[in-house]
Every structure is written in C-alpha cells, then in structure tokens.
C-alpha cells in the first residue's frame, strides 16, 4: 500500500515535468507578439518594447526561456505575469474560489445523480425512470454555454431566487447557482451509470443470497448493492473533475467569478506564457491526485482490490 503510493507520487513528478515542458512548448509555439497583445490596439513605443522584451527574456530561444522558467519553479517561484503581477499571488487569489465552486458542484452532482439513479433503477421501466431519462437527454443536449446564461437569466434576474453574479469572496449561497450549472454537465452520465450499475447488481447472485438470508430490503440495497455499484460511479466522478474545470471557464465568465477558468482564458488571450503554464501545472497536479484518490477509493469500496 505505502509502496504503491510512493510509486504513484514518483510518477507524478515525471508527469509534472513532462506536462510543463509540453505546455511551455505549446504556448511558445502559439506566442506571436505578447507585447502587442498586452496593449491591445495601441501602438507600442520602441523603448517599451525593448524594456519588456528584456524583462521577460522574450528575445531568447525556447530552451533558454524554459530554463529560466524551471529555475524559478524549482525555487518555488512561478514567475511574473506579463502584467507584472506575481503568479503565485494570482493563483492564491484564483484557486480557492474555483475549488469551492467545483466541490459544491461535485457534491450536488453526486448526491442528485446517485439518489435519482438508484431510485430509477429500483423502479425500472416506471414513470420515474422514464422521466429521469428524458431529463438526462435534455441536459446532455444543452451545452454549458447555453445553460449558464439561461439559468442566470431565469433564476438570477427574472425570478430573483439567486444572486446573478458572485465574486472572489463569494458565499456558498452566491456560488450555488453557478455550481448547479456546473453540476448539470456531469449529472447526466453519472445518473445513467449509477442506474445501469445498480440494475446489473440487483440481479447478482450475492443479492439473492442476501435476500435469502432474510436481510431487510433497505440493507440489501444501500449496503450490498450500492457499495458494489459505486465503483464505476466514483471513477466517473474523478474523471468529471476535468469536465468541471473546463466548464468553469464558461461558468466563471458568466457569473463573474475570478477563478482559475477566468485566469486561464485571460492568459491565453494575452499570450501570457508563464501564467498559462503556472495554472495548468497546478491543474495537472490536481488531476493526478484525484486519480490517485479514486484508485485508493476502489480499495475502500471493494475489499478484493489490494495495492502492492
């Protein structure tokens, strides 16, 4: 178990360096004139161009720039954005609110999809099952760029149930609407997978045995069936975190949340290499950890799985 975790952590280090290198190369290849991108359509003066070029080593080759970046990174310095702000500060500002948003979304999505999934599996073929199928189809058909402004308009402005925008220090209440929007993109698959998995397990031999032993229906469903059905769902939730981060770019934009998605979009727009790489690197680490966590959860859910 311990050795397994250490091995995974070591792999992470390699993945991290590989990912930053690839990212840096991609951003570098896409970078045309970051100084012009910074000032928009205004003319850039000669001396300003020289000053910025030297400050950010823009005149040097790819490997030298990458070297400067890695040198900083290894000493814990994520560098400076082209706007002059320390990237560490920007991350400290952006990550907490995005993480909170994503967590609320995950909790909403998981609670909703597992409950509805299990219930429709039990009432397979019934009215509830069919209605939930239609809802899933509708949710799947609507991309987040439609859902986000639509929900904002209906629930935020016209009905006034929720605040239409949130800020960095948003309360859970302010984040609820964006989180629901975000949850919408992952609810559909999670719900279907739960349903299928539960339906399959209901027919399994061990369920018949449990029933034969005289266990109550509740205990059979919630302990025996659900636990075995959750493995694919947990995997999916782990993977969905990626979808949530991608969806965060749109959601944060619509609901004015200055988080990771917003910073990434801005960094790409202004060709701000260090900023993109900094944020995505952390995103990569986060992914790796979530995947590790998911793998470890398997063992918790299924005693037959052991890691050496």
């Amino acid at each position: 178990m311990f050795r397994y975790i250490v091995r995974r952590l070591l792999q992470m280090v390699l993945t991290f360096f590989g990912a930053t290198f690839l990212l840096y190369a991609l951003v570098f290849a896409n970078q045309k004139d970051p100084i012009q991108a910074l000032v928009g359509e205004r003319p850039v003066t000669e001396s300003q161009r020289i000053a910025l070029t030297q400050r950010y080593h823009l005149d040097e080759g790819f490997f030298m720039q990458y070297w400067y970046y890695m040198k900083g990174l290894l000493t814990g310095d994520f560098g400076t954005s082209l706007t002059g702000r320390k990237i560490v500060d920007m991350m400290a500002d952006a990550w907490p609110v995005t993480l909170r948003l994503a967590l609320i979304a995950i909790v909403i999505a998981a609670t909703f999809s597992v409950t509805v999934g299990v219930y429709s599996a039990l009432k397979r073929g019934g009215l509830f099952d069919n209605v939930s199928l239609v809802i899933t189809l509708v949710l799947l058909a609507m991309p987040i760029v439609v859902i986000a402004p639509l929900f904002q308009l209906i629930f935020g402005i016209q009905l006034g149930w929720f605040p239409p925008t949130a800020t960095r220090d948003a309360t859970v209440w302010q984040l609820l609407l964006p989180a629901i929007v975000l949850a919408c993109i992952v609810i559909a698959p999670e719900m279907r997978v739960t349903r299928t998995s539960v339906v399959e397990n209901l027919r399994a031999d061990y369920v018949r045995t449990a029933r034969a032993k005289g266990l109550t229906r509740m205990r059979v469903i919630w302990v025996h069936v659900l636990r075995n059905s959750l493995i694919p769902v947990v995997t999916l939730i782990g993977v969905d975190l990626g979808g949530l981060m991608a969806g965060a770019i749109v959601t944060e934009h619509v609901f004015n949340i200055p988080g990771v998605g917003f910073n990434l979009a801005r960094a790409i727009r202004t060709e701000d290499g260090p900023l993109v790489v900094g944020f995505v690197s952390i995103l990569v680490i986060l992914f790796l950890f979530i995947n590790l966590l998911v793998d470890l959860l398997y063992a918790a859910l299924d005693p037959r799985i052991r890691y050496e």
Partner: protein
Amino acid sequence: MPGKSPWKMAVGATAIALLAAGCGSGGSDDSSSASNTVVIGIGEPQHLIPTNSTESNGSEVLASLFYPLVDFDAQNNPVPVAAESITADATSTVWTVKLKSGFTFSNGEPVTSDNYINAWNYGAYGPNGQGASYFFERIKGFADLQSKDPDGEEGPQKAPEPKAKTLEGLKKVDDTTFTITLSAPFAGWESVMGYSAFYPLPKAAWKSDGVLADGFEDAIIGNGPFKLKGKWEHDAQIVVEKVADFKGTVPKIDGITWKIYQDQQAEYADLVAGNVDVQTTIPIESLAKASADLGDRFKKSPNSTFQFVGFPTFQKEFSDVRVRQAISMAINRQEITDQIFLGSQSPATSFVSPVVAGYRENTCGDNCVYNPTKAKELYTAANGPKEMKITYNVDGNHKAWVDATCNQIKASLGINCVGGEEPKFADLLSKVEKKQPVGLIRLGWVMDYPLMENYLGPLYSTGGSSNYYGYSNPTFDNLVKEGSVAKTPQEAIAKWQAAEDILAKEMPVIPLRNGQNVFGYSTKVNNVNVDLFQKVDLYKIEVVG
C-alpha cells in the same frame, strides 16, 4: 471487518474536509447599501501607475484617486484644476505650471513640483517600459531617456543604458512652480496634460530615486478626492473612500466601490438586479432589452471612438482615388449602425470625432453618402479590382459588421468582397508590416486629449503612430504642424480643418462610425454623466434619498 475502518474514517474525514472547505470562507456579506456610496462596474485595470495606464478601466479608477492639473469644460477646452495657472511663452515652447497651494496627498504629504517632475521622469525613462511614455515625447530631452537595441530585437546584444535619467525640459522653479520646455512649439500642450499620465506621485511611491517601491501600485496614494480603502483586490474590486478636508471640488458621494467584471453581460445582469449602480458600457447583446429593463435610466452620450477602414498604400489596386471613393459610397453606414449596432454608434462622415473643437459635419461630403449607382459608375470607370477583402481581428467582435459591409459592397459594386480573419490585432499588423495583401484594414481610434490634432497626427501624418496603412502627404503634414504651433486655438483649428479637407479629397481611409457611451444606472443613483473618455463624472453623481 476491523481492517476496513481506517478507510471509512479516511473517506469520512475527506468528506468533512471538503464540506468545510466549501462552506469555509462564507459570511463576508458586507452590503453597505444604506450609506452614501456607489458601486461602479469596470474591467480589471491593467495598471494603476498613472504613467503605465492607457486604458479606460485604469483611468476611471485613477480619476477618483488623483486630481488632474487640467480638466475640460463642456466645450472641451482645458481648465486648470490642481494648477493655479498654466501659461506658455510667446512661442508655446516653454510652459510654466503654478500649483495651487495647500493640496496634499491622501497620506498627508504636500503636493510639490518635485512630485510631478519625478513621476514624469519615471514615466518617460525608456527602461521602465511605461505604457503611456509616449505622452512625454514632446518634452525636450525625451530621446535621451530612450535606448535603441543596437542589433535589433532578435540580436544578442542588450540595449545600452539611455544617455540621461531625467528630462532636460522639466525644471523646478520653486515648490509650487515648474517649467516644461517642449522640443518643438505646441499650442495644445495644456490639453495634453489633462491625461492621467500627468498625475503626480508622492514621496512614498519611491524606494530610491527613479525606482518604485514594491507594492506601491496595489496601495497607490494620490492627490485626489478619494483614497484607497485597503488594497487593490485584483479581479474583484477596488474600494475608495472620501478624503477628509479635500481642498478641491468635493464630490457628493462618500465612496465608490469599483467592482471588477470580466464580462459586460455579467455586469449588466448585476445592473438589472441592482447590485451595481453604474455601467458605463452596456454590451451590444443586452442593448435590445436595455430600454425595457432600465427605462429612462438607459442613456447615451458621445465619446471619442472613431471606427474606420484604411487602404494600404502598398496595394496598388487602391491607388486610384476613384476606387477609394466608390468603395466608400458603396457602404450604407446608417443601415449598419441601426441593424448591427442598434443605434449604439452613429455614422461617421468626417475624419475626426465630433467631440473635438473644430469638428465639422460631413467633411467627407458625397464620398461618405450611400450612393450605389454612382459608386458603380466610378468603380467601373476606374477599373477597380474584382475582388477585395476587409481584414480584421477576430477577437474584437468585428465579424458581424465586416460581413455586412462586404455584402453591401458586393451588392453595390458587383464585385466579390470577403472578410479576412486574423486571430489578433498583432497578427494583422505583422501582415501589414510585411506588406502582404490584406485589403482594407479595420481600425479604431480613441483620443488621448480633445484636439483635432490627436486624430490628424497619429492617424494620417507621415509616420504617425497608428498610420499603419502608410498614408503620406507633405502638404497635409505641414498644415498639421502649422496648426500645432499656431498662437491661438482658432488659428490652429483653421489649419487643421484645411488639413482635413485634403483627407476628404484623397480618402486614405473610409470613415465608418463614431462611438457613443451607452450606459445605464440603478434607481439608487442620480445625475450620472459619462464623459468623452468613458468615465463617470464623479463630482456630479449622487445617491438618491
């Protein structure tokens, strides 16, 4: 099952930690709606150091923190504000600024000549890379503060240190008087000094001579009616509060929260919901419903934006003036401003914006009047190209009107016209620099100071900073220069108008649209005015009731 309980605990602990994180930093709901303060929406400013700020978000915030040397009256003539007087010598070369006494920065430091001189020297010094440094170009000695890379940008050599660190043209006379010597006479200099680049900085700003203190930008101190409360909360908000006993004009409100939005549509949602009091630019997507949502709190006022397309001089197919006239006549400006911009912009028929003194309507004459028949005749006679394109940057929301313009040209002239897409403005510029055939170039201009010269100089003069299409006419250049050194504003305007007449004959660009501020405000505020620079008038706005 004893072996499994640690797992359960781990899972449980994780869940609790997640929930705690989710609910953690809530409860910071400090809505001070009862007080005499307003919330104004802006975008994240790029910089708050005055000499580095060139966009409207930064200059809006700076306008609350600083008190300018000059401001502009209703006719856009400069009026001294923080200055007691600003006088020029007979040739408009040496300008003497006398400051009003008794003014202080919000940290208590008195405002002296040195505060201005040091701040301007910092702004002009090349290696500081300040965005607004070009404002100091006219001051004597500016060139000595710049360095040139000896072997170009790609070369291995570093640029040498500039010759001087301070502007030769700035001289302190006493604590409240200083002189500015320009390298060439310029009668409009007083207006130039109205820009935010000319604000003073306190002693507290400097770590040592010419080096800004770390973190000063986030906690900037100015000489204005408001001061920062706390720090610049990047991407979230900037809160300012009234300075006690301010010596200048005192605003009617006690504070402003500059709320930062990434997206104007989100800002509009907050405006309708009453979470923001003023939005200076309502996005085009929300314009259709703005009248219904806001009623008479939805307003328009002129601003200085000027939208046009330029003909690259290196593309010979446009060298015949009749071709340029025909294309201009083929465009129905009114239809585009009505249909696509929903009246948020107005058709342009002159080469400068209506907001500057000396503007005359319709200097473009028949050339800017939609006349497809005449356009077709002219175009056929001049044997214009059978295909053309209008190149624009995709990230600027230009597709709709460029396509519409192209369709009008197609219909009027019977030729093929397509929109050329470039990802960014920089891509467009680099193609123009390499003299690749880009067709018409989409361009826009926002003035820095309200003079005709600020349009004629950068846009149409030989080597002008935004004259990307390469128009050059010595007679025109001379007229602009003569206007700049003229003794009275009237003389200057006469010269500049004569210069504009040349443009009307030669049509180096096609004027398309003049911008307007389309703004809205909540029921909480009153007397909301948005000026030519897209800034809210902070001295007039008041809270209702």
